[in-house]
């Protein structure tokens, strides 16, 4: 899988050739530095490990510093590997850039961490309908989940029953997002639709 690490910049809308207003997400993707090249011989599988975003030296552990020194690069915030990276041939310390991987018009997959919503009820968390009625005996249960199971048999609540709880802040993958435009010199890519996460959060674009 080929991919890049980036940062969500924000959203905007542009008009396409047919005059339709298209919502787009702006992502600053790459350049990523190759921090390790894994091969069948050395590691048992092929992969490319890349890093993105400068980290402070004081926040980087000594073993990681050594790892970055090997690639002759400054310490990076995020390091991850892409298995079977075959788009371009890269050596240790090389930069992987946007135009190495993506072209305008193709479909990409975006992975991000969704915005944390805290403890939420089932209406927000799972799209339950609630009661939809303020009268007819309802007093304070407009957003209640309703029944969570039968009584003496099975005499328990089944595992995985959807209830309130921590919502968002999870790793979310969105597939088939169209690449609208690439500004290679600024490392910016315009992707159709929304990408999970806050502005400034890490995003992985892959295809």
């Amino acid at each position, binding site marked *: 899988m080929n991919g890049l690490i980036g940062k969500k910049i*924000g959203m905007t*809308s*542009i*008009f396409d050739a047919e005059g339709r*207003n298209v919502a787009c997400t702006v992502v*600053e993707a790459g350049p990523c530095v190759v921090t390790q090249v894994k091969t069948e011989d050395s590691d048992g599988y092929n992969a490319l490990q890349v890093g993105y975003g400068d980290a402070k030296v004081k926040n980087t552990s000594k073993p990681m510093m050594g790892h970055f020194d090997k690639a002759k690069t400054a310490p990076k915030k995020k390091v991850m590997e892409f298995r079977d990276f075959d788009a371009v041939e890269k050596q240790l310390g090389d930069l992987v850039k946007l135009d190495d991987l993506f072209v305008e018009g193709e479909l990409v997959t975006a992975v991000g961490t969704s915005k944390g919503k805290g403890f939420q009820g089932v209406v927000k968390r799972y799209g339950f309908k609630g009661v939809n009625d303020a009268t007819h005996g309802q007093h304070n249960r407009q957003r209640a989940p309703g029944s969570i199971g039968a009584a003496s048999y099975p005499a328990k609540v089944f595992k995985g029953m959807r209830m309130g709880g921590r919502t968002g802040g999870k790793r979310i993958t969105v597939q088939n997002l169209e690449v609208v435009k690439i*500004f290679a010199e600024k490392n*910016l890519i315009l992707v159709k639709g929304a990408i999970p996460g806050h502005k400034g959060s890490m995003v992985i674009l892959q295809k």
Partner: protein
Amino acid sequence: MDAINFVHEQMTKEITYPDFRAGDNVAVSYKIVEGNKERIQIFRGDCIQIKGENSTKTFTVRKMSSGVGVERIFPFASPNIVEIKILKRGKVRRARLYYLRDLVGKKARIKERKFIKKV
């Protein structure tokens, strides 16, 4: 934000329309595609707000159509806008004329701005 502005600069063509504000009576010529036919519709009414910036800037035009208020939001960046004509300059004290929604008939008129500063 810089990056978004950069995208706006690159993606939007520089189109200049006459400078109008909320309260002005405008006629917007808008391209409409029906099947494979294209025609131009003119939407005439009072501009009740201008909001947003750069390529997401929009303006809202309100008109009375057979006794019913109709509002339409146009993006400035829309390629379908052929022309914007200013028919009358209005004298208003607000940037957003939402109060017009509650008024009908003679009350919903906007006083004309007679003295216009030369640019």
